[in-house]
Structure formats: structure tokens, C-alpha cells
């Protein structure tokens, strides 16, 4: 049923050529700037000061990366990023799955009330300031747990998991219960293993969110020891912005901060890029449940 338009008439061929040409340009518009960042981060300070290259640097050097890694705080930030992402994802997925499992049972008493409470949270929120005041009164300011606890639950993810759990055949649950298994056992031994695709999708999206999150730090953390990579990068950017704005730094200082900034950008993004093939597999096969196909 594929519309093999290649063999089509002249009109169709012109259409195809035009279509492919435009899409190629779109791809280049995305790829060239990204390539340029990588190349720039691998350039020497002199080449960066001169600038003016698009595809290939005038002088390659690892000095930017050396400068970044010499600073021990980048390792600290990396450690915070990794631990908040792994711990955050595991607890979030487990918490949402647990609530979603209970809510997937139609006979659950009080279910209607719980669902209404959940739906309201999808549309209304207290906003920045009331949430800040809550976090403050809970004593979560400048605590690592502010990355984990407020991110435990999302009703949206609960709904996705709840719908997935509904598709698990009842017979499996019933036979397990006849053998004397309780709800926890059924949940852990039957539902969780059978729902791995849905849980992986949520885990990956939540993981990207955790890794990329910067507002939580900006709002609730002032202790530098708790800064993740994103905040570290933000600091580097703000620093070099003010420096170049005040024009206090000599050309040399300005370019080293630029190099450090570029190298930090690449380091911050690398884990996402490495995860990208996995992400792609899951957001296509998992999220859309096979909807994006040719």
C-alpha cells in the first residue's frame, strides 16, 4: 500500500525533489550549529578568539576540557546530577506505579474521589511563590531531597500506568490470588514485570526532565555543593556574560571562559546524547504504541 511516488509522474517527481531538498536543509539547520559547538569546544583559546569558523577549527586543543576538569566542583556537580537523576527516576516510577496499580482497580472504594483529586492537580497549581513557601516550611531548602520528594508523583504518569495496568489480563491476577498472593505480591511479581515498556518510557522522560531541570536548583538551592551540572553551566554562562559585558577581562581571559563554557555545554549534554538511541526507541515504540511508523 506504500505510495511509491518515485516512479510517479513528473509532477510527483518535482514534488519529491522539492520535499527532500527542504527536509535536507532543515536537517542541516539543526546539525551545523550542533557540530559547530562540538568543534568550538575542541578549539584552542587562540582559535576561539579569532573565531570565524563553521565546519572545522583552525587549531584543535583539549585545553578547554582540561580547564573544566581541573575544577573539582564539576565532578561534584556531575555526581549530584547523576544521583538526583537515578534516585529521582527510580522513586518516581515506583511511586506512580504503586498509586496507578491501586487506582486501576475499579472496585477500589473512594476511587472516584481520588481520581477527581488527581485530575484537579493536572489543571491547577499554586504557582511559584506558594510552592516556594511550602518547600521552605517543610525545611527542604538547601536539601538534596528537594530534587526527589516534590518530584515523586505526577498524576499524568499515574494515568498512563493505570491504563497500561488495565490491559493486564484479569486471569493472571486471579490465579495468583487463588494461590494466596496479596496485592503487593501481585503488583510486584505480575504487574511490574508485564509493564516494563510503559515504565521504561516514563523513566526515560522523567530522567531527561531530572537531568535537564534547573529551576528547582535556582529556586530552592543556594548551597554550591548541591549544584547539578545544569546550574553549574548556568553559573559559567552568567559569569562570562558579565565579564564580556563589563569588558574588564583581557581578550585572553574572555576566551578561556568561552572555551570553558563550550566544554561544559558538551559535558552536560553528553549523557543525553548517549541515551538518545534508547530514548528514540522508547518514545516511538512505547509512548505512541507504534503510532509513528511508515
Amino acid at each position: 500500500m506504500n505510495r511509491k511516488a518515485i516512479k510517479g509522474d513528473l509532477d510527483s517527481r518535482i514534488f519529491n525533489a522539492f520535499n527532500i531538498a527542504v527536509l535536507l536543509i532543515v536537517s542541516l539547520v539543526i546539525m551545523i550549529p550542533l557540530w559547530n559547538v562540538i568543534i568550538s569546544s575542541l578549539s584552542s583559546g587562540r582559535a576561539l578568539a579569532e573565531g570565524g569558523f563553521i565546519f572545522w577549527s583552525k587549531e584543535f586543543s583539549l585545553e578547554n576540557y582540561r580547564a573544566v576538569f581541573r575544577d573539582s566542583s564539576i565532578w561534584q556537580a556531575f555526581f549530584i546530577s547523576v544521583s538526583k537523576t537515578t534516585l529521582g527516576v527510580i522513586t518516581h516510577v515506583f511511586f506512580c506505579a504503586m498509586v496507578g496499580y491501586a487506582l486501576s482497580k475499579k472496585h477500589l472504594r473512594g476511587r472516584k474521589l481520588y481520581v477527581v483529586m488527581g485530575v484537579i492537580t493536572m489543571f491547577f497549581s499554586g504557582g511559584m511563590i506558594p510552592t516556594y513557601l511550602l518547600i521552605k516550611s517543610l525545611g527542604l531548602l538547601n536539601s538534596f531531597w528537594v530534587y526527589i520528594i516534590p518530584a515523586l508523583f505526577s498524576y499524568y504518569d499515574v494515568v498512563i500506568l493505570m491504563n497500561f495496568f488495565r490491559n493486564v489480563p484479569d486471569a493472571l491476577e486471579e490465579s495468583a490470588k487463588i494461590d494466596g498472593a496479596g496485592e503487593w505480591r501481585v503488583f510486584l511479581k505480575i504487574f511490574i514485570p508485564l509493564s516494563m515498556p510503559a515504565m521504561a518510557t516514563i523513566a526515560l522522560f522523567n530522567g531527561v526532565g531530572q537531568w535537564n531541570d534547573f529551576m528547582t536548583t535556582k529556586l530552592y538551592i543556594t548551597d554550591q555543593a548541591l549544584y547539578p551540572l545544569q546550574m553549574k553551566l548556568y553559573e559559567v554562562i552568567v559569569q562570562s556574560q558579565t565579564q564580556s559585558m563589563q569588558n574588564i577581562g583581557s581578550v585572553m581571559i574572555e576566551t578561556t571562559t568561552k572555551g570553558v563554557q563550550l566544554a561544559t555545554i558538551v559535558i552536560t549534554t553528553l549523557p543525553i546524547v548517549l541515551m538518545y538511541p534508547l530514548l528514540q526507541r522508547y518514545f516511538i515504540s512505547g509512548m505512541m504504541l507504534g503510532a509513528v511508523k511508515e
Partner: protein
Amino acid sequence: MAKPIVLPSSGKRPMGERVKEFFADFWRQRELQTMVLPGIIFMIIFCYIPIYGLTIAFKNYTVIDTLSSAPWVGFDNFKIIWSDKYFWDAVVNTLGISFLKLGIGFVIPIILAIMIYEVSLTRFKKFVQTISYMPHFLSWIVLGGMLINWFSTTGLFNQILLDLGLISKPSNILLDPSKYWWIATLSDIWKEAGWGTILYLAIMSKIDPTFYEAAKIDGAGRLRQIWNITLPNMKPIISLNLILTVSGLFGSNLDQTLVLMNTQNREKAEVINSYVYRMGMTQGDFSYATAVGLGVSIVSVILLVIANKVTTKLNDNQSVL
């Protein structure tokens, strides 16, 4: 046993009996109930308490107060909004950027999705999708850092313009306030346009291919097929997206603003969100910042209702929400 017997609740049975039965069921389901309970507690603490906290918009809350000790001031905080010039500047910027995003950013994913859908070379299609989805996964801080480098006088952007002979002297457009709206809009499109095609592609893949076969036999060209088959099939999802976009007109991207705003472009870069952030978090005027945030959310809900009404009319009286 697995499932408790749920009696059809009839109005005839006395209240006490029904309550008793409810608690009996509840006790029988205690395992399930303990699984849902943490979620309920979470929602009460992290969602409903902040919603209750919105009341500080009607109070004069200072750092030394507790939520209950702060004195009520009625609508005083809202009255200040009317005469707050900086707030209205932020509204103009928010709407300016939002309308640019709506005008350009809304259409591009649709066109892009149709173009990707029309590609019959599977490999090339996969390639374009892989590339165009990627920027979505960059954080705004990362992209902001990249933009600062691309737009610097020695950066990529100036070099391309110089090579093309479009400018003779490099300049940093991030320091030019008059260009900020465009930078905010186009960088957002660069990041999210590819990702925005996913939903459209999912809908298009469900269109019955026989429609296209029939159109071809009737002599319809490719553009005609897109116009008469693909687009009408996407009408509901496009309407849905339009409603959501319109209701978000007063919303703005705080991450993007915080990283791209500098002392030079602030007058054009300050949006409502960043203004709330500045008033509340930097200047500590919690009550006023909350009032601004609440006022804007109420306007957004009104917009959502209006947009839903309008698209319902356009969609033969069927709501897409």
C-alpha cells in the same frame, strides 16, 4: 477473595448500613488503600496546600509572617497591578513573543510533519526524524549557552552572514533588544518543531491509504491530496493544539528567559513569569508576585474556555477537549 461484593447502592437502604458497608469494604481492601494513600497525602501536601497558599495574594505577607498571621488586605495587591508599568511591559513582551510563536511556531510542525509523511524513502525519513527530534532533549540552559556562542561576534551566526555577504561587520544580536522577540521565537521553533511533528505523524499514519488511491485515480496531484485528505483528517488534533496554545498565550518559558536575558535586552526580554520570579524571589514581595501569577492564571482559564467555544463551532459543534 479477589473482588469484594459490591451491592448496587439503592436509596432505600438506611444510611448507617451503607456507611458500615463502605468501611467494611474499605477494611477488606486495606492493602490497596495503603497503596493509594501515599499518593493522596502527596497531592494534599504538594498540590492542595500551595493552592490554598494562593490566599496570600489577598494578604499582606512578609517574611516574618506565617500564612495565618498575615493580615487580609482584600484586592489591594490586584489594584497595584493596574498601575504597575513594569508588569504591563512584561505583558506586552509575553504576548509579543507568544503571538510570534503562535503565528510561526504553530504552523511549522504541521508543514514539517506533512513533508516527512510524504517522504517514501524510509531511511531518509528516519534520518530526518532522528535529527529533528534531537534538540528537544537539550535543556534551555544548554541551548542558551549555545545561542550565546553562536551569536557572539566571532561566532557561527555572524560568520555565516559574513560569508553570504549579508552583513559587513559582525554584531551580537543578543545585545540588541529589538531582535529579542525573534531570537526567543526562532530558538524555540528550532528546538521544538521536530518534536511537535510526532503527534501529527501518529495521526497521519492512521489515515486509510485507500483514500489516497481513490484520489489518485480521480487525477488528484500530491498537493491536492494533502489539501483534501491529509489536512481534513488532522483537523481535530490541530484544533486541540490550537486551544492549548491559545490558553498558554500568557505563559512563557522561564528557563529560556532567565538564560537569554541580559542587562542590554531586559526591556524586551522580561516576561510575566520572569517578572513574578523577580518580584517574589529576588525582591521578596511574595503577596504581590502571587497576585500577579493568580491574575494571569485566571485570564488563561478564560482564554481556554473561549478558544474551546470557538473551535467547537469550527468543528461542527463537537468539542475536541
